[in-house]
């Protein structure tokens, strides 16, 4: 069942990705001040939002695991954390590439950048924790605890622009941060496509967990 759903999303991606590229490169106008480099924004912001959503799913599933002790929730939490870490890595790599021509430096210890880096380290820690705890029950419990506590940084990253002085642009405000309507449309299209990408990757990662579990059950019987 999961395999079939995975194939459907693979086909959706083949259609969706070129649409996203069209919206980012052709439909969206070139920004007057920053020029063409501004177009990094569509996938950079989409990656950030999808990364936050992925960590929210990990947070939710961690709570569900601690309440029910069903390993399905632990599998989803792990898969979502891994995919979320991938998207956060994209954010941390594309942001500096945009920043160099715009701010004149790849990195500053700006609140938004710093809190996002902390978020990345938290979820690297989550993945490493799972690698190094051998006992299945302990691994799930400790990961769930980290998945819940680590999520505290997500609203901090999101609100960092309001809480502290920052040079990072703010799109999420009244009027869409002064964005041209075509840019806003392109942003939402890219966000939709990255959400499909997240679901496709999550399902594939869940397939891995499910297959590993079925294999270990058969091997234990022997």
């Amino acid at each position, binding site marked *: 069942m999961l395999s079939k759903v995975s194939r459907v999303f693979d086909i959706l991606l083949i259609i969706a990705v070129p649409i996203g590229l069209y919206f980012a490169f052709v439909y969206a106008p070139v920004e007057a001040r920053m020029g063409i480099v501004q177009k990094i924004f569509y996938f950079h912001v989409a990656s950030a939002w999808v990364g936050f959503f992925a960590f929210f799913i990990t947070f939710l599933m961690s709570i569900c695991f601690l309440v029910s002790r069903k390993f399905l929730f632990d599998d989803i939490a792990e898969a979502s954390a891994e995919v979320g870490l991938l998207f956060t890595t994209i954010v941390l790599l594309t942001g500096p590439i945009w920043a160099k021509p715009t701010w004149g430096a790849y990195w500053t210890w700006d609140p938004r950048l710093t809190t996002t880096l902390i978020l990345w380290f938290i979820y690297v820690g989550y993945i490493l924790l799972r690698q190094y705890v051998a006992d299945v029950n302990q691994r799930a419990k400790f990961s769930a605890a980290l998945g819940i506590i680590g999520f505290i940084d997500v609203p901090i990253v999101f609100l960092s622009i309001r809480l502290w002085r920052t040079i990072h642009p703010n799109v999420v405000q009244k009027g869409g941060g002064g964005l041209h309507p075509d840019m806003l449309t392109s942003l939402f299209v890219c966000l939709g496509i990255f959400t499909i990408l997240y679901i496709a990757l999550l399902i594939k990662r869940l397939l891995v967990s499910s297959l590993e579990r079925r*294999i270990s059950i058969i091997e234990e019987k022997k």
Partner: protein
Amino acid sequence: MKNIWYLISAYSVIWFLLAYYFIKIGGKVKSLEKRLASLEDNEELENK
């Protein structure tokens, strides 16, 4: 004009990372499916 190289670099990073993870996970799924199929076949033979 040189800013276009920053744009190309950023998009290369995005799609390289996504493609790498996609292919890695897809490969892992295929190999696990094969392993599961062979274990289930062996189990059936043992039960007969």
